[in-house]
């Protein structure tokens, strides 16, 4: 029950032509709304940036791009692990699902640690939210994202706990996974907009 195409195919069988919505429907309401809210923030950032290119460009250089890249890869890996874990859960391979979600939790937990190791030197060096508009946007948006990450880690923790029980809920595992993928997508955009673009 651990073959690769088998797990994908097994998942496919559950899907009808009307489309399959993984997880509890309410989480999609949340995901879409959250993406829209962040979307508004991103566009506002771009507009305000346009009014002061020089300031934003100069401030951006203080960000730690290396930690940014590592964090991106951390979230991508964690996302992969929950996706594989979801497939395992669907084929009732609870042992593998437990390990995969557990690994996702362990990898994902590195994100807040790295974020703090990035922020603490920056704040000590005087790069606080109040310093200028760029840093206000940066801390507000990455801060909001960090809260989502911490919440996501808690949810995955509950999923891991549930997978240990004799009859775990596949829906719940899917719900947690979808939320975590949303967190990943948001970070992909954050990374590009704050760390990389000019």
């Amino acid at each position, binding site marked *: 029950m*651990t*073959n*690769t*195409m088998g*797990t*994908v195919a097994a*998942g*496919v069988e559950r*899907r009808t032509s*009307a*489309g*399959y*919505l*993984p997880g509890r429907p309410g989480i*999609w309401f949340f995901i*879409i709304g959250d*993406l*829209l809210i962040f*979307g508004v923030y*991103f*566009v506002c950032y*771009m*507009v305000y*940036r*346009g*009014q002061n*290119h020089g300031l934003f*460009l100069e401030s951006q*250089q203080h960000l730690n*791009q290396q930690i*940014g*890249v590592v964090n*991106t*890869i951390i979230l*991508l*890996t964690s*996302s*992969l692990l929950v*996706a*594989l874990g979801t*497939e395992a859960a669907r084929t009732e391979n609870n042992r593998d699902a437990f390990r995969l979600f557990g690994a996702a939790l362990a990898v994902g937990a590195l994100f807040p640690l790295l974020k703090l190791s990035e922020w603490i030197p920056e704040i000590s060096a005087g790069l606080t939210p109040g310093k200028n508009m760029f840093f206000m946007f940066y801390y507000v948006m990455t801060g909001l994202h960090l809260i989502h990450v911490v919440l996501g880690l808690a949810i995955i923790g509950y999923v891991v706990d549930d997978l240990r029980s004799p009859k775990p809920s596949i829906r719940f595992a899917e719900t947690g996974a*979808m939320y975590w*993928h*949303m967190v*990943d*997508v948001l970070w*992909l*955009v954050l*990374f*590009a*907009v704050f*760390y*990389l*673009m*000019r």
Partner: protein
Amino acid sequence: MTSYLRNPLTFIWALLTAITIASWSIGKGHGSDYHISATITAIVLILAAVKAQFVVRYFMEVRFGPTWLKFVAYGWVIGLLLLLLAAYRATL
């Protein structure tokens, strides 16, 4: 465990990681050579949209989802990319 290495999702992950490293090497820089660059911005944003699209389509399984979800999810990725590029362009 090696079966997971051959899983299509793992291949997508490898692609995403490669794109991340590529866009980082394009976008990084410091000091005097760090100035406004519409090209770099466009490349970086488009690559981010490509990555987001992969995650949405394959990890979030929107490719198997209902039609309205496909509209909304893909629409968000493309719409946000276009809005960001337009806002950037308009204020250059």
